């Protein structure tokens, strides 16, 4: 047993020495990587680590952080009713807009791929534009305005469907559906572009071979040829849609207000904002951020293992 452990460590040491030698020979590589790596660790990895650290403390920026163990987490889960609403809303948004937005992105990219070249360009611009149009979702504020001048209210009144304007953005019953529609409208983002480009790159010879092998319609073609060849893009698209689904805050704050009526449109990120920037309870906010990070990583792993099984 001792001999085995000894041998194991000897091998470990040896491979570490080999790696070290290689690293020394390739030190120019690290030189190239260094400036980016320093900034990347400071602003993308360190935030994760600090938020884990501060989540176990009481920290209000003015006083030094004070260690309080799991109190923040316990309060979050057992006492903070608003957080539970936020989790419920975020999950609702994530579960609906994540998978649906993802599938719509792929579906439309797939359809657009059938178009002749000039139409394809036009279609890509139209579908992609909402996701980069800055705060164009502001216009939904006018469409869903609560008074009679709001587009939807005016339209429905004209048709005689309603006889009093509906407070779309103030009534908790309508808030979430409206927000989900707006987020879906904006969901054709970077992932969508990746799909469009990826579909262009699928080997044409595969389709011809598939035809010879007895594939008879576009659905079979999609399932047996297109999807398996698109796996890398589908992985990338999944990462992008997780980012979007869990990070929702902008749209809810702009449309439903901050705070929204009865917290009906509160998401985890707006809750984080509330504690971080309004109450300056950084420890508590960090606990929220940590839970969010964990949820995102977990989702990413789950989706990746699901996609890996695709077409096999």
């Amino acid at each position, binding site marked *: 047993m001792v001999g085995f452990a000894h041998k194991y460590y000897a091998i470990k040491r040896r491979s570490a020495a080999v790696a070290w030698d290689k690293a020394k020979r390739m030190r120019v590589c690290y030189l190239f*990587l260094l400036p980016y790596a320093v900034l990347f660790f400071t602003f993308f990895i360190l935030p994760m680590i600090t938020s884990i650290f501060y989540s176990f403390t009481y920290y209000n920026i003015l006083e030094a952080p004070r260690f309080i163990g799991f109190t923040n987490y316990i309060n979050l889960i057992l006492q903070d009713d608003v957080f539970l609403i936020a989790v419920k809303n975020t999950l609702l948004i994530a579960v609906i807009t994540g998978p649906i937005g993802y599938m719509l992105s792929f579906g439309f990219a797939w359809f657009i791929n059938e178009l002749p070249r000039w139409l394809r360009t036009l279609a890509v611009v139209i579908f992609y*534009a909402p996701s980069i149009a*800055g705060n164009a979702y*502001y216009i939904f504020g*006018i469409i869903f305005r609560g008074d009679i001048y709001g587009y939807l209210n005016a339209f429905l009144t004209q048709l005689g469907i309603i006889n009093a304007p509906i407070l779309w953005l103030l009534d908790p019953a309508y808030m979430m559906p409206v927000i989900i529609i707006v987020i879906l*409208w904006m969901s054709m983002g*970077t992932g969508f572009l990746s799909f469009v480009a990826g579909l262009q790159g699928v080997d044409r010879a595969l389709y011809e071979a598939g035809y010879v092998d007895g594939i008879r319609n576009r659905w079979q073609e999609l399932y047996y040829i297109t999807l398996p060849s698109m796996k890398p893009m589908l992985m990338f698209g999944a*990462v992008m849609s997780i980012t979007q689904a869990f990070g929702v805050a902008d749209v809810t704050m702009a449309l439903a207000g901050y705070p929204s009526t009865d917290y009906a449109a509160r998401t985890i990120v707006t809750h*984080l904002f509330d504690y971080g920037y309004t109450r300056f309870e950084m420890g508590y906010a960090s606990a929220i951020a940590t839970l969010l990070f964990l949820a995102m990583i977990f989702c990413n792993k789950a989706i990746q293992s699901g996609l890996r099984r695709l077409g096999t």
Partner: protein
Amino acid sequence: MNQTAFVPTEKIRKLQEKEARRMKLKRRKPNRSRAGDFLIYFMLAVVAFLMAFPLVFSVSSALKPLDELFRFPPRLLPLNPTFDNFSDLMVTLGASWVPFSRYLMNTVVLTMVGTAGHLLLASMAAFVLAKYDFPLGKTFFNIVVVALMFSGYVTAIPNYIIQSRLHLIDTFWAVLLPSFAAPIGLFLMKQFMEGIPMSLIESAKLDGAKEFRIFWQIVMPNVKPAWLTLIIFSVQNLWNARASTVIYSDAKKPLVYALQQIQAGGIARMGQAAAVTVVVMIVPIVTFILSQSRILETMATSGLKD
């Protein structure tokens, strides 16, 4: 005799034409039914209309005079299109405490410096990650891929704590430094650079070129589509950055922030608010339209392999 011989040839000709047409249709694409094609065109047209509607409506609202904005029933297109809202917006901006030119300057500086820095740092890192195999290189890249998910708001709070420790709050660096290290740029650049043949780099090395020269004179000129994509994404990102949580001084705020303050001005500024929406959205959309073929070329390599 002649008459009877003529009729069959005519028929044969027609049959041949029909067959040729069928073959042509068939050759166009296998496995495609006409009904399916029609359905797809129809559906895309409907959805494209729904997608474009809010954007068209934004533009048309910005062109409406004030009385038409509050018309009942509302109209999609303005009756008397006017640029009044835009000139009103200029007046409001001109009267603000911090001059408009200052906001514009801030945005221009942020966008230019941020994009240039991001392009340089991300390409340098992407180059070695794509073309050299060195210890921890793969691990680093995998971490970057995970970090793709942590953009924007999710890291806002811990980032604020770190930046306040580094005394970056209320300086341009609070916006610039994180944007230099945006994971999406490194990711796209690295994936695109993988396509450069290793032989190109090795032959340059044989000619005695050092790494930096290979990077600058061989690799970078060969990844123009990725360059452009990085620039466009970075510009879109920085143009939309309000930075409201990390920059407090009004004199340092970017243009979009100022515009959105006007937009928040309520009913009285309805027309100007619509104009703001158009001004804010026009920059990212136009840059995308101008560069979409290059961006798609880059995105074709964006896949995540296991």
